[in-house]
């Protein structure tokens, strides 16, 4: 595997990637409006913006998925390229992508997904799968990973899927036999990664940048942007809002540029819950990765669950809700008294006033192809049933909730899929909170939701808590836990290893506990990775 040799940054060298007048219209609305930007070789450019501000659209144009509106130009290493890009052109030009939602086909094997690039663009009449297998193993080994190329992607844990997509992109960008260094485009790869995983990713990015590659990095996490980028460009409603040089910008500056106004970062009002009654408690839960966890949550409390992927923190909501089979344990909740976890089922949970908002927004939480009204009314249909379902009333309710939760646009007849991520999340929160549950279980409630929209979601959660709803939030986004939680439980290897309260709940502190709790897992991989590059 010979790599492009490191090159010095000669001044006056043409940008690795130069976009001119990129525009894209969907129906009437501009998703992207005359955006131009440069990325220099050996540079990491951040790309930020609210949901729907056009980041992915821009990237999909680069990938040849969308055709831009006429007038767009693309220069790569100073040479003009005809748009729209044809299949295979991207690879030839050294463009590699990790798309939002990874772009893997889960019912196919890791190997097939790894090779989809060449499958798509090279017509080969003899594929030696045996050899491909060995090569894939070697590749993974070089990245310090142990992933079976023969496994179906669906059978891998989320984090490994992300790694497959990332490895695929890095392999493409470092393909031999190209005189120019490649260009790597990462569209929100981090939500799927644990803190340690993000570190590994950044290590890789720094390595190829050192080799002279150019990187475009999309994230909603301003801290990540601060960490890894040299410059960052912000899109707003499809237009270029501005570009900041990272090292002389503050996070607030970014946020302000993203949202277009100064955002009041949400901060949960401190309140004393010691006298609040216990809403629900579990004893010695076993199942998923959990090997015996006990905990309780009080009415009005927002309890955070954190840990490294695989530590089991994100199994708890699903076990309590009864969608993953529990091996043992007891649940005590106001609604159902005492109940063996084995016997839990969604129906039983709902009967007890326990509701779950899963992370997979359009896969498990709501149906994209049905209207907002349909989605919102599902849990409460019986309220509208007289002789026949009262649609005007249902629409009115949906409209009211939309207003209350600040869904934009607030049109109950619209298909859920047509709403943006953040707005979808608001709708789905409303769907469950209108049932006045005793306990609300959340998994990654703001994954892929932009900083502006987050504040709305947080406010909605706080309001619910104030009404006495007990809330459990499982998340790898420690920043958000810091913002909203009264208490955070740290998980490692299937057990609770630490409990943070009050001022102890800080992003750094949570991260540290997670890493220390799961030290073994983390510190092993990272050096393996570094050394994987050292060899080249």
């Amino acid at each position, binding site marked *: 595997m010979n790599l492009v040799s490191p090159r010095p940054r000669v001044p006056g060298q043409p940008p690795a990637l130069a976009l001119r007048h990129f525009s894209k219209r969907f129906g009437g609305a501009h998703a992207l409006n005359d955006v131009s930007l440069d990325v220099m070789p050996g540079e990491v450019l951040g790309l930020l913006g609210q949901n729907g501000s056009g980041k992915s659209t821009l990237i999909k144009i680069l990938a040849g998925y969308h055709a831009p509106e006429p007038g767009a130009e693309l220069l790569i290493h100073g040479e003009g390229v005809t748009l729209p890009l044809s299949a295979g052109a991207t690879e030839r030009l050294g463009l590699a992508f990790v798309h939002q939602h990874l772009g893997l086909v889960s019912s196919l094997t890791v190997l097939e997904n790894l090779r989809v690039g060449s499958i798509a663009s090279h017509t080969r009449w003899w594929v030696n799968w045996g050899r491909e297998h060995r090569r894939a193993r070697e590749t993974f080994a070089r990245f310090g990973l142990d992933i079976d190329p023969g496994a179906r992607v669906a059978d891998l844990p989320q984090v490994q899927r992300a790694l497959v997509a990332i490895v695929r992109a890095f392999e493409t960008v470092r393909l031999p036999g190209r005189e120019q260094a490649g260009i790597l485009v990462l569209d929100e790869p981090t939500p799927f990664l644990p803190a340690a995983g993000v570190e590994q990713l950044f290590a890789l990015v720094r390595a190829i940048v050192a080799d002279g590659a150019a990187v475009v990095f999309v994230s909603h996490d301003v801290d990540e942007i601060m960490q890894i980028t040299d410059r960052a460009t912000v899109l707003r409603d499809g237009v270029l809002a501005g570009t900041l040089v990272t090292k002389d910008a503050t996070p607030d500056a970014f946020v302000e540029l993203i949202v277009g106004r100064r955002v009041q970062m949400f901060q949960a009002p401190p309140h004393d819950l010691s006298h609040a009654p216990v809403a629900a408690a579990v004893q010695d839960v076993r199942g998923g990765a959990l090997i015996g966890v006990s905990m309780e949550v009080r009415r009005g409390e927002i309890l955070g669950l954190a840990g490294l992927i695989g530590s089991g923190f994100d199994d708890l909501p699903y076990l309590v809700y009864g969608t993953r089979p529990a091996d043992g344990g007891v649940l005590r909740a106001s609604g159902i008294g005492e109940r063996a976890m084995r016997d839990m089922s969604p129906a039983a949970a*709902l009967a007890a006033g326990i509701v779950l908002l899963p992370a997979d927004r359009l896969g498990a*939480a709501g149906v994209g192809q*049905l209207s907002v009204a349909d989605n919102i009314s599902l849990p409460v249909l019986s309220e509208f049933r007289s002789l026949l379902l009262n649609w005007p009333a249902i629409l009115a309710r949906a409209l009211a909730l939309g207003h209350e939760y600040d869904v934009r646009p607030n049109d109950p007849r619209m298909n859920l899929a047509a709403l943006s991520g953040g707005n979808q999340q608001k709708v789905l929160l409303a769907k469950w909170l209108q049932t006045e549950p005793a306990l609300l279980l959340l998994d990654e409630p703001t994954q892929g939701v932009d900083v502006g929209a987050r504040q709305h979601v947080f406010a909605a959660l706080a309001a619910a808590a104030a009404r006495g709803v007990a809330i459990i939030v499982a998340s790898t986004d420690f920043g958000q836990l810091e913002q909203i939680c009264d208490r955070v439980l740290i998980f490692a290897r299937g057990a609770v290893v630490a409990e943070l309260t009050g001022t102890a709940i800080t992003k750094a502190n949570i991260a540290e506990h997670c890493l220390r709790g799961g030290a073994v897992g983390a510190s092993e991989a990272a050096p393996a990775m570094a050394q994987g590059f050292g060899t080249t």
Partner: protein
Amino acid sequence: MSEVRDMDAPAGANPGPRRRFNWVRFLEAYALLAALLLLGAIFGALRPEAFLSWANISTMLGSQAVLVVLTMALIIPLTAGDFDLSVASMLTLAAMILAVLNAQMGVSLWLAILAAVAAGFVTGVINAFFILYFRIPSLIVTLGTGTFINGIVLWMSGSMTISGLDDALTDFVVVRRLFGVPLAFYYALALCAVLWYFFEYTTPGRRLLFVGRGREVARLSGIRVDRVRLLCLIASGVLSAGAGIMYAGTIGAADPLSGLTFLLPGFAAAFLGATSISPGRFNAWGSLVAVYFLVIGITGLTILGIQTFVQNLFYGGGLVLAVALSQLVRHREAQEFS
């Protein structure tokens, strides 16, 4: 208009408060109905005395009631995301059970009907068992059970036509008339109304939609997905049996084979129907319109004495072009049916 609003309210996609009347949506929903009327007008102009006679119209309405009912039997599992290819075989089986029990063994009509319906129920359960317990795609299962049932029918009947059914049956299906239209039509009509009400205005009906569009979402919202699918397959079996009984009533006998020819027209009607009235969803009224759109075409051609192959041309061409039109209206944006 209120009807329109009510009907497509769930279908979604049009601003609520500041809502203007939406021509595109209206066109999309009623294009097929318009086409139907146009077709009727054309044939009426060509052969007024024969085609526009109430006698002819009532004949058309009456003679295709069976197809309407069978289509209803199809759209229930389709809405829940399952194919049922065994409906036509079930129709034949029900008719044959009726004939064997009532005409041959002299069992009372009502008992025979009960038996036929029971058979439909059992078929539904068997289909569901293989689909839900073994997790086999419904397409395969029902293809298999359908063929199996054909075998049973051939065996029961010795592949003979069995006539001599109790006149009461034919009486209540085609002989008795209301405004000159055989009762069969009103049964079909009533069924459509019930299904429409069920799908649009009852909670179980809405749940069905979620089961079809998002199994996981439905499950996590506390819907017992497998139970819903089971019930749908049973309903489809029972309705097919009903169609079979009506069929036996229409022709006053049962034959082991002719019923099978209903399968493809049934699917055609179901899918064509899903492009009208409440587009993008299998729906009762849409299917009704679709059935009679195709029937008017065929009958008109027959009355004009046009050679029979033109019927196939019309059937196939009509189906594709009608759907293509409705796609043009919605700017050819793909719609996943269910």
